């Protein structure tokens, strides 16, 4: 059976393919910035592994307040709030697109795929809403 190869175009799949690479790279850099800053403010002697990783991936208020050292004054500023929003936006989009790719590998074409994509889009928006709500209510700024 001849496999039908889609024509090369600026399609949805191409955009998402590019997005997965770019967001993956971005999240790695954001994580390194988080680890770097946590080490700079004394993670080596004053944080456990969980706290360090909270700083790395999602330095929101409840996470940082849960650590042993009082770092809030070094952390409450717009820079880290922007970091949280960028990280969570990339992470949730990357995650749900990856989920969509895996599931669609086991689906044929047709209206079922369209329905599934609609459901994933709804879940994606719902997760973004929840995550943004957590950032807003976590005592930041």
């Amino acid at each position: 059976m001849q496999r039908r190869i889609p024509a090369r175009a600026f399609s949805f799949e191409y955009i998402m393919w590019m997005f997965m690479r770019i967001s993956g790279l971005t999240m790695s850099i954001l994580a390194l910035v988080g680890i770097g800053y946590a080490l700079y403010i004394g993670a080596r002697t004053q944080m456990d592994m969980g706290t360090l990783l909270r700083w790395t991936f999602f330095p929101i208020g409840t996470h940082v307040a849960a650590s042993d050292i009082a770092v809030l004054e070094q952390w409450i500023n717009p820079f880290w709030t922007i970091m949280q929003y960028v990280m969570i936006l990339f992470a949730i989009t990357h995650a749900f697109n990856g989920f969509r790719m895996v599931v669609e590998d086991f689906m044929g074409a047709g209206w079922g795929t369209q329905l599934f994509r609609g459901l994933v889009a709804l879940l994606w928006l719902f997760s973004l809403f929840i995550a943004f709500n957590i950032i807003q209510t976590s005592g930041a700024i």
Partner: protein
Amino acid sequence: MALKRNVGFWQGLKYKGGGPMWAWILHRLSGLSILLFVGLHVIGAFLTAQFGSDVGIAINVIYEAWWFQLFVYFGIIFHAVNGLRIIILDFWPALLEYEREAIWASWFVILPIYFLAAFSIITHALGG
């Protein structure tokens, strides 16, 4: 139109794809696990913060347990380093010739980082 594949799950496992196949499987598995666990963790935090629900606390007790973190760390470190390998090979396709070597190299990065993290978690959990 999707490809018609009459290949079962167990048959698929016998495919001798070697390193690239296992990297592909582990990448998907770790990605889906991260979506599941971190998604539950975020929903748990939301439920606790908004409704004071016990469900969120119950989720996070499991999520933050040290033995569970061992799995989460492996998934995240593997997914991150293997993902960087995929990015590098995709943006410089000439390097695809060395894909197997690249996978070995990624394991040489993953395992030391993981065992360092696991060592820290275990000594902290057992030593108090």
